[in-house]
């Protein structure tokens, strides 16, 4: 123990004898570790921002769209034909892997309240829609069964719509006109913010499905819906839910073998995982670029240590003559390298965190500072010191005392 302390003292003393060089050597590690911490914080920040905006769509979400039926060589795109019905939605409710199912009709419409008017997307659906999309109510209530079944004119406003029509006033129990008919406002949704593609998710109005079918879309395709949204029981049951939906609709729509389905099922979780993969790649890319700079810093350490060993050959000879064993010489030089890298690592971590917070504050980019990459960067910098310090230290310890003493 005393020997270790003494060697630590000898190493510190040798480092302080050449402060500028010690600092320049440590600089490589400071920049390397700082870059790793900053880049990983940026990457993870982006990743969590993307994940958050995807989960804002609703968790464990499956979206069924009417598909592209083939009619004599003519194929319309997805949603081209209204093949999904309220009946489909009811049938899907029986599936074991699904927690909730909600048929949805969407239609643009103009809303009027007093002198204010606002054009928005009106969603006709059931109360399950709120659960599926993870919407919460800021005030008011959701639809009652009577309101849904008998197609009463009630509406739940999104935050943006409420602000545009009512300003600061309370919209509950007020009457707004949608597509010329009066609707009673029964609830206001809590704000969700922008979606991943930059749309304002709060710019929406929800009315009962039956009401929408009667009042907005008319009778052209009676009983049809634009999309059906479903929520699986859990993330694990998303895939089985997707398969069950496909099977059931395949039967109900009487689709023959070898014919394209007239509907499509989108698993939002798979989109989320793709996005997570992309942003994960981004993190790895940024991290590895930073890792390379850490490696280069390590080579800098090795370079300086080699020079130092050559320069101090005579000193090593003297130390050996007065009793230093090869082990203690090795220890001294190794400690020097490790002290430089760990100190550099600590400074680098502080600088990295500082820069990350600065970027968050002044650059408006979200960063995530987690302990794992910081501990990793610190551990790696220590290992870099050991790895790149070992060769020069061994070289020093293998010197022959008489040759080292003769060295000028």
């Amino acid at each position, binding site marked *: 123990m005393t*020997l270790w302390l003494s060697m630590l003292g000898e190493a510190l003393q040798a480092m302080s004898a050449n402060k500028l060089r010690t600092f320049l050597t440590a600089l490589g590690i400071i920049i390397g570790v700082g870059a790793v911490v900053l880049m990983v914080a940026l990457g993870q920040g982006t990743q969590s921002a993307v994940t958050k905006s995807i989960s804002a769509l609703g968790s464990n979400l499956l979206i069924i769209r009417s598909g592209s039926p083939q009619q004599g060589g003519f194929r319309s795109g997805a949603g081209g034909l209204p093949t999904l019905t309220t009946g489909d939605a009811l049938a899907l409710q029986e599936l074991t892997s699904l927690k909730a199912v909600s048929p949805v009709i969407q239609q643009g419409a103009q809303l009027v309240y007093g002198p204010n008017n606002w054009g928005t997307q009106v969603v006709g659906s059931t109360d399950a829609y709120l659960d599926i999309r993870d919407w919460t109510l800021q005030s008011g209530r959701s639809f009652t069964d009577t309101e849904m079944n008998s197609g009463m004119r009630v509406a739940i406003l999104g935050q943006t719509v409420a602000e545009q029509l009512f300003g600061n006033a309370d919209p509950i129990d007020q009457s707004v006109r949608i597509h010329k008919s009066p609707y009673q406002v029964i609830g206001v949704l809590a704000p969700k913010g922008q979606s991943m593609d930059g749309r304002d998710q709060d710019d929406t109005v929800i009315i009962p499905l039956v009401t929408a079918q009667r009042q907005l879309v008319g009778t052209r395709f009676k009983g049809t819906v634009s999309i059906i949204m479903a929520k699986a029981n859990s993330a694990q049951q998303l895939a089985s839910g997707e398969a069950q939906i496909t099977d059931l609709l395949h039967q109900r729509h009487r689709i023959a073998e070898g014919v394209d389905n007239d509907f499509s099922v989108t698993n939002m979780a798979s989109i989320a995982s793709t996005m997570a993969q992309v942003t994960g790649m981004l993190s790895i890319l940024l991290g590895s670029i930073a890792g390379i700079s850490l490696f280069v810093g390590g080579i800098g350490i090795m370079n300086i240590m080699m020079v130092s060993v050559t320069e101090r050959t005579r000193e090593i000879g*003297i130390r050996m003559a*007065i009793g230093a*064993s*090869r082990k203690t010489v090795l220890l001294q030089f190794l400690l020097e390298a490790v002290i430089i890298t760990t100190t550099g690592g600590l400074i680098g971590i502080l600088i990295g965190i500082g820069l990350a917070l600065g970027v968050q504050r002044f650059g408006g980019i979200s960063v995530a500072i987690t302990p794992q990459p910081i501990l990793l960067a610190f551990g790696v910098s220590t290992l870099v010191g050991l790895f790149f310090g070992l060769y020069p230290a061994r070289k020093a310890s293998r010197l022959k005392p008489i040759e080292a003493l003769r060295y000028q």
Partner: protein
Amino acid sequence: MSDIIRLADLKKAYDTDAGPVPVLKGLGLSIAPGEFVTIMGPSGSGKSTLMNILGCLDTPTAGEYWLDGQNVASLNEDQLAEVRSRVLGFVFQGFNLLPRIDLKANVALPLVYQSVAKAKRLERAVAVLERVGLARQVDSLPPKISGGQQQRVAIARALVTQPRVILADEPTGNLDTTTGQEIMTLFQDINKESGVTMIVVTHDAKVAHYARRLVYLRDGIITYDGPTAEFQESQA
């Protein structure tokens, strides 16, 4: 076995491209504890090689070297380092102090390798520096003091571990005559006070007269071993 140093048929050859070149050709030598011996010889006689072997900085090709009751000819590098640390003290021609640390740290350095605690190290270093007459310079750096003083520091460094043997290689070679005499007197005093065995390698006959016994080396063979007073250059 009361001898502190005993050589038996000691040989050393250096490997060169032209084959092994013998430098020491079978030396026998016994030195009792507390003796003051000078080793003399012209350049090329092998006295530096002998010094390196005596100092455990080099190993012999053949033969035995008993130091303090241990045959060090068979030891490995780490064991030799241990022997250098515990048994030997070195004084070099070129002083060989570390220029960037002060005198007391220089003198305390051998104790680092004996795992002596720092406070204790410095305490002992200062005490030895006082003994060699440098009590007021303990905080100076080596380049700031004279050559004679530097050699005193080197002697203090050799003494601080209380070794059995002090080896000095041309200790007056870089000093003027007066300073050289002072250093040799210091060696004599230390030898008398502490009973440490003193071996000085030199080519200077005046230096040799400080020692009672003289060993003369020529072409790798000991040609004279006896009282310094009776030695004449022509005899060798």
